[in-house]
């Protein structure tokens, strides 16, 4: 187990592994998005109440789900970095913050676009939307802290890791917000227990889109972490060898 752990901590090993996986994961991402969006937008029937406007669910729900799951990944990276001072965990934390911010922003924007025709408003301060906005601010806070402390990278990574850990409490709040309080959002459609309250002809394309979004997250993470490795480790011998080999 420890050798596995040490392997994951090695930028050199990750750089090579991610480089080999990237094309496959990227192609799988495109394929799943193609299937999911093609099926969801063109083939799936429209909703009996919302008509065609419900179809934004095929973007809104996947990006929202992955923005939450990505936070857990980021918080775990933060904990690993704080305890073991692992360089790769710090790079993952920084990359996850930026990608998570982008996904959360997309979730908020698609939510506003969906809200206008169905609820009748772009924005309302209900518990789910407000806690998602807080998530966006935490992600952006980490991104900006890294930039602000760019000349003191050791300090930046530690401060950001602590902020990431503190923000973890927000994730279960977002998830349970529609059950704990009266909100404009409806309760969850997809549940861990029991069947989804969505017709299978609409649900299967949604599943494809969610898988596609996870794969997209993996692709982006590998790209960004590789970029961070290149930026920080460029003086190491093994990277110099690779760079020379490319010429």
């Amino acid at each position: 187990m420890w050798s596995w752990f040490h392997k994951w901590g090695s930028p050199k090993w990750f750089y090579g592994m991610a480089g080999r996986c990237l094309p496959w994961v990227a192609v799988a991402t495109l394929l799943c998005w193609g299937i999911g969006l093609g099926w969801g937008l063109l083939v799936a029937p429209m909703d009996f109440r919302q008509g065609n406007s419900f179809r934004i669910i095929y973007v809104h729900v996947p990006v929202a789900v992955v923005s939450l799951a990505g936070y857990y990944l980021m918080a775990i990276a933060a904990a690993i970095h704080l305890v073991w001072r692992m360089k790769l965990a710090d790079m993952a934390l920084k990359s996850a913050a930026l990608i998570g911010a982008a996904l959360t922003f997309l979730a908020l924007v698609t939510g506003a676009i969906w809200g206008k025709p169905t609820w009748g408003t772009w924005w309302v301060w209900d518990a789910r939307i407000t806690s998602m906005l807080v998530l966006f601010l935490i992600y952006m806070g980490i991104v900006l802290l890294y930039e602000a402390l760019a000349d003191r990278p050791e300090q930046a990574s530690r401060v950001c890791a602590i902020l990431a850990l503190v923000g973890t409490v927000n994730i279960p709040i977002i998830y349970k917000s529609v059950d704990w309080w009266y909100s404009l959002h409806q309760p969850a459609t997809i549940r861990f227990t029991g069947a989804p309250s969505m017709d299978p002809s609409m649900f299967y394309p949604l599943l494809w889109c969610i898988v596609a979004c996870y794969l997209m997250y993996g692709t982006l993470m590998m790209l960004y972490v590789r970029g961070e490795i290149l930026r920080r480790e460029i003086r190491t011998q093994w990277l110099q060898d690779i760079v020379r080999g490319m010429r």
Partner: protein
Amino acid sequence: MHPLRKQRLWVVVFIVAFSSLAVALVMMALRENINLFYPPEKVLAGEAPVGKMIRIGGMVREGSVIREAGSLRVRFDVTDFKGTVPVVYEGILPDLFGEGQGVVTQGKLVDGVFEASEVLAKHDENYMPPELIDAMGPDHPGPKKKAP
């Protein structure tokens, strides 16, 4: 495990535990304010402020929507099946507004009548193609009706 790392691990655990505790306490204190709306039951019980801007939410009672001819004025009842509040509103209603559908409305409670300034539609978590609804008959409310 190295003692220094063990110590750091405890710090991590404490950060997560204490920040969660702090947020939980804040939310306990603010739990009434986090709710977006009052259900009619609480309005009737006198828990909602009178004459102040509030939101109420529930179902539009079947057969209660009355549109005034020649204007945009509309009256309807909002119910949570434990209480009912009459609402008056003048303005454009969202497309999903309808009898038996969820609604959240903002306004003031004046003499037992809710004078709304904004009406939002609330939809449920069920998604179904229209053909299936037709096959189930016009009175079918949706795929699955949760027990109240």
